[in-house]
């Protein structure tokens, strides 16, 4: 169980049997990681300059999201990700501008400015289910999505992701238990990045691994090097195939490391040993993939630089465009509570709009999020 699936070692040398993957897929994984880094970096700057309220660094874990995304089908499959999964969206061509719309909570944000940043929701170009802040709630829901697919006899599957801390939640237990009982077509991907805010993984479980928990739910558990995009791709592909064939769910533990803080409000130097960071820097998922792609002739140094420049420009333009958009209108506080607005909400909406129309005072919008 403690065996770690690895295809590329830390230098990008092939040490395992590589799956057959099309060159476009490999380059798209690479690009999604580059996009995530640029997006992450931009968000950090926007937060530090007070333009957005919050973000969550993805540095270090990107190969988990990108490799997994590549193994799923954007047309028929559903995704129930968690908040540290930017590369999953980039891989499937969610536009950076739409993501920034959420970061700014502007009038074109799919979540209509109702959620904090990084709580994305998309139905196009793929079903990326709306992210919740309470942890683990998406796990039984993802099982329900998968059971609906099975009920209709579809050839599709669901992937849901979560961090190591979430394995302690009731949703993890309920979800995996239901999925095991009903053989739901689902892939559970635990991004073991070793920290739940400041609490080390040791605080979450006394098990020898997260993957071993699968045994108790009657499903296979796989442990994979989360900084090896190829290995993640292989593990998720195999699990998705198994799900589609009616063989039921799989739990995958992707062993990785969160190089940044939990969020823009967190200072990891208070609880992460500097030596640990240095150790994981050598395992950088982007560099590893890049070295291998270049070695295989899929990529050149020049093309890699071009990609970096294209992405930098794309992210900058997207951020600028989203920042220029206005806030959602006041009435959006009251819409989408129910499909049809009940009379008490109509009355509250009218009152709210009238109140602010009559008073031309700026509403204090300061507020710093502590987590």
């Amino acid at each position, binding site marked *: 169980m403690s065996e770690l699936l690895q295809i590329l070692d830390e230098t990008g040398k092939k040490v395992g049997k590589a799956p057959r993957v099309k060159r476009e897929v490999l380059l798209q994984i690479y690009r999604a990681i580059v996009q995530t880094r640029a997006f992450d970096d931009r968000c950090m700057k926007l937060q530090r300059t007070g333009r957005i309220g919050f973000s969550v660094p993805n540095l270090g874990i990107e190969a988990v999201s990108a490799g997994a995304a590549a193994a799923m089908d954007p047309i028929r499959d*559903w995704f*129930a990700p968690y908040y540290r999964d930017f590369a999953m969206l980039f891989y499937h061509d969610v536009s950076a501008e739409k993501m920034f719309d959420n970061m700014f909570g502007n009038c074109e*944000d*799919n*979540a*209509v400015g*109702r*959620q904090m940043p990084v*709580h994305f*929701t*998309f*139905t196009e170009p793929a079903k990326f*289910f*709306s992210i*919740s802040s*309470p942890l683990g*709630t998406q*796990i*039984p*829901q*993802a*099982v*329900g*999505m*998968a*059971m*609906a*697919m099975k*009920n*209709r006899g579809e050839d599709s599957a669901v992937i849901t992701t979560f961090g190591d801390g979430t394995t302690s939640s*009731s*949703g993890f*237990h*309920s*979800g995996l*238990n*239901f999925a095991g*009982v009903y053989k739901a077509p689902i892939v559970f991907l635990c991004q073991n990045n070793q920290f739940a805010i400041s609490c080390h993984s040791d605080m979450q479980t006394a098990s020898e691994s997260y993957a071993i928990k699968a045994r108790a739910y009657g499903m296979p558990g796989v442990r994979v090097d989360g900084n090896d995009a190829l290995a993640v791709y292989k593990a998720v592909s195999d699990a998705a195939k198994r799900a589609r064939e009616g063989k039921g769910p799989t739990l995958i533990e992707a062993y990785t490391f969160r190089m940044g803080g939990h969020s823009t409000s967190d200072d990891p130097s208070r609880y992460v040993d500097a030596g640990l960071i240095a150790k994981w820097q050598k395992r950088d998922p982007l560099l590893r993939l890049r070295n291998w792609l270049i070695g295989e002739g899929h990529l050149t140094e020049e093309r890699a630089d071009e990609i970096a420049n294209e992405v930098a420009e794309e992210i900058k333009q997207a951020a600028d465009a989203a920042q220029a958009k206005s806030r959602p209108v006041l009435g959006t506080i009251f819409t*989408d*509570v*129910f*499909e049809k607005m*009940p*009379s*008490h*909400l109509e009355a509250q909406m009218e009152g709210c709009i009238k109140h602010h129309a009559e008073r031309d005072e700026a509403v204090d919008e300061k507020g710093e999020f502590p987590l």
Partner: protein
Amino acid sequence: MKEDDSVLVMGEDVGPKGGVFLATEKLTAEFGEERCFDTPLSEDGIVGVGVGMAMNGMKPVCEIQFQDFIFPAFDQIVSEAAKIRYRSGGQYTVPMVIRTPYGGGIKGGLYHSQSGEAYFAHTPGLKVVIPSTPYDAKGLLIASINDPDPVLFMEPKALYRAFREDVPDGVYEVELSKTRNVTEGGDVAVFCYGAMVPVCADAAKRIKDSRNKDVRVVDLRTLMPLDEESVLQAARDCGRVVIVHEAPRFCGYGAELSALIAERAIESIEAPIKRVAGFDTPFPNTLENYYMPDARRVLDAIEEVLDF
């Protein structure tokens, strides 16, 4: 379930056994295990899985065996089912029903008797429906299943075997968010729901017999969204108001009704608004009949507002 293949029933013991109150009897035999099935003993799993199914094209009717057991699923109901339309800007919706027997009257003690409607009526995005007759139970349940939003459908378990009533064959809906006048009257308005409806009707009959006063007993039927206009109309027409529920009084649903009437119909009110409710204690077992409002307590309240 005959009308719509996407409707399915899930919960603990709802399959071959037919539910502990036999509400789902014979459904598995008729519709198969794909449509009516037992689940692991996991309330947050039942509701969480139901939420996912509802978002992906199904119309699950999830049963929580007793409302007292619903709290492990509180997060899934309050923070998920009720908020998913809002937080996704309508991209994802949760057309599901959660059925659950609630209330006292079966000697169930602390954990088979509670009335938690106020917790849920307080939740934006969730509808709360409580029938009090067989006719309404069917019509409101069908309306709830067809509703595009999540509905908590609370069934007064004291009434399951209390009386019989003819129910039409076939499909019909009783519109949500519409009250029903159980008795007509202009002297006192009594607002109630669920198992308190026959109790209040009994009290109304007694006051008619003893003092020839006409009480308008209003069965709310849907607590959220409330039919506010009908409540205010009854309060204005009668000028005297009694509110009855078996849940504890403090921050109970009656507090909201009372505030609503005070805010918007105070000019018509001629006596203090009286609440008859369960006590602010856990629900007792042996002495449950002293805990739950009965016709005598409702009658006392009606007399108090009449004599003010």
